[in-house]
């Protein structure tokens, strides 16, 4: 019955839940000051030095739940006072050094940074060390460790440094809002801004979908989430919150796959455009490859555009595993179609803010997309879908040489080679999160089974191929 991977997620969730609860009641201003005491009720500190600090941090979390710092365009923000200023000494020799004779560490160090004291124990000269890590690799006692901040370790685009007070500092020119640091910080000092207040407002002002209709576009990664209940129950919960209708983002994925294979065949080399963090990464780090990014909008934006075509006054909320989507929907090309974004974490908070126990609800259905659209949620899915698209559009002659990259490091390797014309592939599927969207920072849980869950969900699709799924889109 466990809902989250970590207690940090749970803490963040509790704040979102309480903020949402008072927002539904239109008592945000009156009741907001009470929330820190609801989250930290006793006089015994359990997380920090004292309850006052704990409550002060909760107050900061409330600000983020309300949308965060308006002057900061990034959706990922550091809560300065929550940052524990973890040590950053990099590679250092621990007590485990036995003072051996072999001195492999010394031999492997090209910089001559290893010295020995009178007990033959190793020391690293920080002025010479370049943090290559070779000494740590060769030490037979694993006596050399790399003390790096978890946030910096998680941030594969190297956007995190320290400010003058040693708190984490995010460089917005590098950050791609993937949320890896949000998920990895053991103190929960980095958070994604929330738009749940806007979403609650959208739902309320629709007056039960009479003024306009509010649609939820749900990412296929949902198949691996809310596993303490069924998918059908999670969907019923979304309707219970006041959404008029739920549409699969995977249907947008089918539409994208259908177009992307043609674009690939025409251009000869392409990168995917589905993952907003990956797109942002190319734009920031490999601007010379920008022209090769597929011109398709993301699946979520594609299906949202279609919904707005059929229902121009509608409002659309994307629900998924992704924090980068919170950046994407604010882009000029996407803003007309997607009105707001929330994560699965936030959806859980919204359920509970209304005391909706989804395990008690009936089963709703969600079935628009094909198997191929649905497997976009995991690494390799998009690659398979483009292959299928080529087949369905009689483009099977095209010499398709895809590479599926999950995690920014894998993306970086492929992009680096592409930028030097040394990549043997002609299609790069890029997903910033390891495993694809199922590894997204906004997921409640991350596990080995998630990929299987997505594949199983794919098999349940009524439509077996892309053309059938999108045939209705061409009306």
């Amino acid at each position, binding site marked *: 019955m466990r809902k989250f991977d970590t207690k940090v997620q749970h803490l963040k969730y509790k704040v979102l839940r309480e903020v949402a609860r008072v927002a539904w009641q239109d008592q945000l201003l009156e009741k907001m000051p009470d929330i820190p005491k609801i989250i930290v009720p006793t006089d015994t500190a359990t997380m920090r030095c004292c309850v006052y600090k704990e409550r002060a941090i909760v107050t900061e979390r409330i600000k983020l739940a309300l949308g965060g710092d308006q002057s900061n365009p990034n959706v990922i923000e550091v809560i300065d006072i929550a940052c524990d200023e973890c040590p950053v000494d990099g590679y250092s020799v621990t007590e485990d050094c036995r003072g051996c004779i072999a001195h492999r560490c010394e031999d492997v160090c090209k910089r001559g940074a290893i010295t020995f004291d009178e007990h033959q124990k190793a020391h690293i000269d920080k002025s010479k060390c370049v943090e290559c890590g070779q000494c740590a690799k060769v030490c037979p006692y694993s006596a050399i460790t790399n003390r790096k901040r978890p946030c910096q370790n998680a941030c594969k685009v190297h956007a995190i440094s320290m400010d003058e007070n040693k708190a984490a500092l995010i460089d917005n020119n590098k950050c791609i809002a993937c949320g890896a640091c949000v998920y990895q910080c053991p103190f929960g000092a980095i958070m994604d801004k929330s738009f749940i207040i806007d979403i609650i407002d959208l739902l309320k002002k629709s007056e039960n979908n009479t003024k306009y209709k509010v*649609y939820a576009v749900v990412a296929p990664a949902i198949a691996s989430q809310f596993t303490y209940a069924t998918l059908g129950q999670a969907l019923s919960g979304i309707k219970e919150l006041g959404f*008029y*209708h*739920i*549409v*699969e983002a995977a249907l947008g994925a089918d539409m994208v796959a259908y177009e992307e294979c043609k674009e690939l065949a025409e251009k000869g080399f392409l990168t995917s455009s589905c993952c907003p963090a990956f797109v942002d990464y190319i734009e920031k780090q490999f601007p010379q490859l920008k022209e090769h990014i597929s011109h398709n909008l993301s699946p979520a934006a594609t299906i949202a555009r279609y*919904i707005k075509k*059929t*229902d121009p006054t509608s409002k659309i909320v994307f629900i998924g595993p992704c924090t980068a989507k919170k950046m994407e929907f604010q882009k000029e090309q996407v803003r007309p179609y997607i009105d707001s974004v929330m994560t699965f974490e936030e959806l859980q908070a919204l359920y509970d803010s209304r005391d909706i126990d989804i395990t008690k609800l009936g089963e*709703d*259905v*969600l*079935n*628009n997309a094909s198997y191929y659209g649905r497997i976009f949620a995991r690494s390799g899915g998009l690659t398979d879908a483009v292959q299928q698209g080529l087949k369905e559009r009689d483009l099977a002659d095209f010499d398709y040489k895809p590479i599926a990259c999950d995690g920014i490091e894998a993306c970086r390797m492929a992009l680096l080679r592409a930028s030097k014309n040394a990549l043997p592939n002609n299609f790069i599927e890029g997903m910033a999160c390891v495993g694809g969207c199922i590894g997204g920072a906004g997921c409640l849980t991350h596990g080995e089974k998630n990929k299987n869950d997505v594949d199983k969900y794919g098999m349940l699709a*009524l*439509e077996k191929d892309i053309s*059938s799924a999108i*045939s*209705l*889109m061409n*009306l």
Partner: protein
Amino acid sequence: MNITVCIGSSCHLKGSRQVVEQLQQLIAQYNLKDQIELSGKFCIGNCVNGVCVTVDEQLFSVQPDNTEEFFHNHVLPAFQS
């Protein structure tokens, strides 16, 4: 004339694609392409009686196996007078 077929999940599972395909065929067969605008919409709000089809705002419940009958009774007469 505007014919809108619900393509929401519930109706989709009841066969809205088949209904659309048959309607497209019938419209072509009777040369009504210029006179009928066929479109899709996510959820017309009567999921229990899907597949929901509206003909100029009037709601009908159609299934793949009675689409032709529906077309002859509720669509064609408007063009035969």
